[in-house]
């Protein structure tokens, strides 16, 4: 009897949970002059720090806009994806079916943003990510555009190309070594493209070595790299790993230029170890453009810290979405999509932005140099 009772309890719980949720769902609706936006980011878990930066950028953009997009008051519903694709799908589904959002800003990492973009696209809800750089965020498996997916950052291939071009043309190097994270799509994407472009421009990649996301000991691969005597080392990864590798390179006494990507842009970078290194980024804080100056100044005033790439890109993504809603003059996702796709030369931190046919921004990359005094120096700008 006890078992049957328990079984009935299970089913009852199941049904009640379902219906209880359903009530919540039906009670929420869109108000007259307000627009609902969802925000998805990893606020806990292993990518928490990226998510927090993105949230700061998102919050700042909304605050500057006075929580308005045109005539609409913006209502935000935000959620934590824990950098877990499953959670990302659940959250996106919740925001779309339950909270009835008109658009979503997020997610932060590519592995969550790809499934989120699938859900958003099949529900015909606009999604714009600040930071996910994998090509498949905006195109499907067969390379066809997901019409409702957009992003603010340049995609992996572009950064890899720019870095290779800069290395050959400005640093005048002939050989390069690459160290990358084999478990990280961002790192792999950059590596592939760098390799291709570097070779096309006449350089030779003498070593391309991978490591895992939990590795902390790089002495073995750095020793191997040192034996190859490369002219430069490409380190396409986030600041945490890059700092460790640079320290290992320094400990090995290897003294060649290090080149990287936007993942370096963080206050937690090991500036001492990486001083003199170059990386491709979305903007330079020295850029006199009003968009950049306004962002940097107000960000520092609000958070008492320097913005990093995650914050800047989430800020851009949010601003572009708000502008699109304003131009569309509607909370209808289809109209917002059309407006977003049609944005021309939008003054963003990352430059004057327009979207290409695949929902990727057309913008220039800045090359920055790491300084020992915890700042970056603007070196040059590379057009796509």
């Amino acid at each position: 009897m006890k078992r049957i009772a328990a079984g009935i309890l299970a089913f009852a719980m199941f049904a009640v949970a379902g219906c209880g949720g359903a009530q919540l769902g039906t009670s929420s609706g869109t108000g007259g002059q307000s627009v609902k936006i969802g925000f998805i980011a990893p606020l806990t878990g292993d990518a928490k720090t990226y998510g927090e930066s993105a949230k700061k950028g998102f919050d700042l953009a909304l605050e500057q806009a006075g929580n308005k997009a045109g005539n609409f008051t913006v209502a935000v519903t935000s959620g934590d994806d824990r950098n877990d694709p499953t959670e990302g799908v659940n959250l996106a589904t919740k925001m779309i079916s339950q909270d009835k959002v008109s658009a979503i800003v997020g997610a932060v990492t590519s592995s969550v943003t790809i499934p989120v973009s699938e859900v958003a696209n099949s529900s015909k809800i606009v999604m714009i990510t600040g930071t996910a750089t994998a090509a498949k965020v905006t195109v499907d498996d067969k390379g066809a555009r997901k019409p409702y997916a957009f992003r603010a950052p340049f995609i992996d291939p572009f950064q890899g190309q720019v870095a290779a071009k800069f290395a050959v043309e400005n640093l005048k190097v002939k050989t390069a070594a690459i160290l990358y994270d084999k478990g990280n799509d961002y790192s792999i994407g950059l590596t592939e493209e760098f390799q291709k472009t570097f070779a096309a421009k006449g350089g030779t990649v003498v070593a391309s070595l991978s490591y895992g996301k939990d590795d902390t000991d790089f002495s073995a691969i750095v020793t191997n790299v040192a034996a190859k005597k490369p002219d430069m080392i490409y380190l396409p990864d986030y600041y945490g790993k890059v700092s460790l590798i640079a320290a290992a390179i320094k400990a090995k006494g290897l003294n060649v230029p290090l080149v990287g990507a936007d993942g370096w842009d963080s206050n937690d970078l090991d500036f001492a170890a990486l001083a003199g290194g170059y990386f491709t980024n979305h903007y330079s804080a020295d850029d006199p453009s009003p968009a950049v100056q306004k962002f940097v100044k107000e960000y520092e005033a609000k958070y008492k810290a320097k913005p990093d790439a995650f914050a800047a890109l989430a800020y851009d993504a949010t601003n572009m979405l708000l502008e699109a809603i304003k131009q569309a003059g509607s909370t209808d996702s289809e109209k917002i999509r059309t407006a977003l796709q049609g944005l021309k030369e939008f003054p963003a931190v990352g430059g004057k932005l327009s979207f290409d046919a695949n929902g990727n921004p057309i913008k220039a990359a800045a090359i920055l140099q790491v300084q020992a005094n915890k700042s970056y120096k603007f070196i040059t700008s590379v057009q796509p």
Partner: protein
Amino acid sequence: MVQFIEQVINGLQLGFVYALIALGYTMVYGIIRLINFAHGDVFMIGAFVGYFGFAVWGLPWPVAILVSMAVCAVVGMAIERLAYRPLRAKGAPNIATLITAIGVSLFIEYFTSLKFVFGPNYRVVARPFAVQVFHLGPVSISSVQILVITVVLVLVAGLQYIVYRTKVGKAMRAVSHDRDAARLMGIDVDRVISYTFAIGSALAAAAGVLFALAYPQISPFMGIMPGLKAFTAAVLGGIGSIPGALLGAVLMGQAETLTAAYITTDFRDAIAFGILILVLLLRPAGLLGKAGPEKV
């Protein structure tokens, strides 16, 4: 050849750090037959305390190591007292204690990553001394490597002294050999277990500080992988055996470094755990351990 020697030195540095962690695993397992999953997290706490010591409080690094060892000794004893002893008193099955240990490990990781504790961020460790690279002929070796190897040797010698020359050490060996007999001989078993946790945790703390000096970045989740690999090393050498832990750790360090250097880096973790499974299957008592038949 030069490169090979340098790789072996790299492997030694890694292996020696593993050795300090592995000693704690092996001592605890020897005495209460528990895989103390939380040991890797004690190592992490050690790294953080050491980092605060020399980077924030401005202590000289050897003092920072000692402070960290003292703090972690207390942490280790507290874990044993609060989480494991109640289960032991109840005579709970092995697995219940193991699951508790996993719980303790998760607790330490999540708790320390809260903002008001250590925070979730990576921290870059600024070394308290400049790294120098020495050249012995064509082979280069860094001051960090020399430091790690020296400190580990000193600590292992100290441990050897404690285990074989002091009263506590004798009691530990007696409890590890036969807990009931030791109790009958008037040894306070709970206290001996407590000391074992203290010593093992202190060694892990030292390992943590050295790790932070050698691979200068720390985070609340940094203990998981080194912990598992050090455990593998302890099993490889024969769990319960102190010389075994050292041998196993040195072999693990070499295996990991040399595969990364000469075979592939793609499967580095897979290889470490492949070794573990093979050892468990082919020689479960490890290289230096003794197998005993189960009593029926």
